[in-house]
């Protein structure tokens, strides 16, 4: 009976964590794309991005602990810490392990942002572009009910959402910085990337 609870908790926490991380990824992309509306200020995107990231780490922690403790999968601590050390579905679990490490690097550097400076922080943050697909891959292949309809629906929605946010980010014109030289030289008009005052 208790193993069932552990199994449900592992799956549940893992899926919630994935949904939250997908939301975090969307918000991160929208933040750089400077989205805002009359009722959604820009700071909200950034602060929600950070708070949801911390929340999803909590669920991630629950997912990992219950998965290690679950006797059905025979995962030991080693399997959770070392990629491919698991005897149960080594590759899918490894995706998860690597994803967690990348996420931890991003989270820790973000918490220490003011001490390490923007350049270092940004370099590490690129790792999130690898962490999220690994998490999706892990969800798809590591669980024993990966191909149930509802789980596929949830993952499909997550992929669509992040894909849409990425597409929006790529078409929204980048930072002002990339245009400064052209504007100064007179080859581009002095129009900023969606000036923030427009909706004030």
């Amino acid at each position, binding site marked *: 009976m208790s193993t069932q609870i552990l199994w449900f908790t592992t799956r549940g926490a893992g899926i919630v964590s994935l949904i939250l991380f997908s939301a975090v990824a969307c918000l991160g992309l929208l933040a750089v794309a400077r989205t805002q509306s009359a009722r959604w200020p820009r700071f909200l995107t950034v602060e929600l991005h950070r708070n949801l990231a911390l929340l999803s780490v909590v669920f991630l922690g629950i997912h990992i602990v219950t998965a290690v403790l679950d006797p059905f999968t025979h995962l030991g601590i080693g399997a959770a810490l070392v990629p491919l050390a698991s005897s149960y579905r080594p590759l899918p679990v490894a995706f998860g392990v690597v994803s967690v490490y990348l996420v931890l690097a991003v989270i820790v550097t973000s918490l220490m942002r003011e001490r390490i400076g923007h350049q270092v922080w940004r370099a590490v943050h690129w790792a999130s572009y690898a962490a999220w697909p690994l998490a999706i891959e892990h969800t798809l292949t590591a669980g024993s009910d990966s191909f149930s309809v509802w789980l596929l629906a949830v993952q499909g929605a997550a992929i669509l959402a992040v894909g849409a946010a990425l597409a929006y980010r790529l078409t929204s014109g980048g930072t*002002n910085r990339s245009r*400064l*030289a052209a*504007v*100064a*030289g*007179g080859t581009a008009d*002095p129009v*900023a990337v969606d000036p923030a005052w427009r909706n004030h």
Partner: protein
Amino acid sequence: MNPRLFAGPPAAAGPESHAEHVARLGRVPLDSAAPAVIPVLEASGLLGRGGAGFPVGRKWRSVAGQTGGRPIVLANGAEGEPLSAKDRTLLRLRPHLVLDGALLAADAVGADRIVLYVGSSHRDARESIRRALGERRDLRVAIDLLHAPDTYVAGEESAAVHFVNEADARPTITPPRPYERGVGGRPTLVQNVESLASAALIGRFGDVWFRELGRDATPGSALVTVSGASRDGVREVEIGTTIGELAGEAGAGASPYDRQAVLLGGYFGGWLSTERSWDVPLDPIALRAAGGAFGAGVVAFLGNDRCGVRATSRIMDYMAGQSAAQCGPCVFGLRAIADATARLATGRPERDDLERIERWSQQLAGRGACRHPDGAVGQLLSSLRVFGPEWELHQRRRPCTREQVASIAPAASRAQVA
């Protein structure tokens, strides 16, 4: 007035050789040969000639007192200001005076290295300095000659240091300022070449001698670059000479009505009408009080047949293009202002262009990493004051009352020795 910096052979004779220099002035007085030079410089009241006018003695004392490593002297001869030719002329004709000043500075602050930062396009000046370095046998510190890029901001203090450190002549965020941490993280004395040359003379002849010319708070003589006159060029003038007197000497007219206005300081300086400024002395304090600035010693007269609006719009276009392109307010603000002034100058303004440039100018001051935007809008606001009626005419699309030709020609680099 007897020339000081340009005493010696006439300009037509070209660069002064080391032999002539020593015969005329003796050797540079380093440590044991003369009392410590910093108190003498402080007593002399010499102000920096690079544009900011900071007291030279105090600057040397600050650098000497730093504890972040052995200092370095950076002799700034980048001269990116198009209207100024004094630094390249001084470097060409009196290279040994500049070298003396740099050696004196290195000695005074305890530096073990001198960087000569000379504009890449000032070929004659560079050649002269290179030859002068070859002539000397008394160089006790390492001296490097670097070619400064031909941009407007390359001569800014932090830009010069940035170039020496990373070959990137763009200004950086301060603090820390170069005198605290500059080249290689060491305290760096960034000093204009004319200031160094004057220091070399003060080191020999003393502060009392220096104060024989000029006025109490602003003593001595200085180099100015005159344009818009029939005898354009670089001159040495006593500080306190009035604009009218200089105009007379340089052939810019016998009365204030022979010219319309004068741009003082440089593209980062300010306009004054000749009527109001004819009797204003060329000294930093009096010029500030009159709403102008001494800056880099630029005195550019605008003829009566020229349009001040057009001249200003050309300057704004240049300044916008010369932004280091690091800070949004400078890039967007200056470009938007330049576009608006261009529309006004060519008779196709939008309805509120004039109001916009005033508003943008007020927003821009102090919001860049360096003072480039401040200088540009300062010049613009003074232009709005001096050429007010013309700006109004242009905004209302009335025909300009001046001829449609307008430019302030870049300075000739001939030295005119009084």
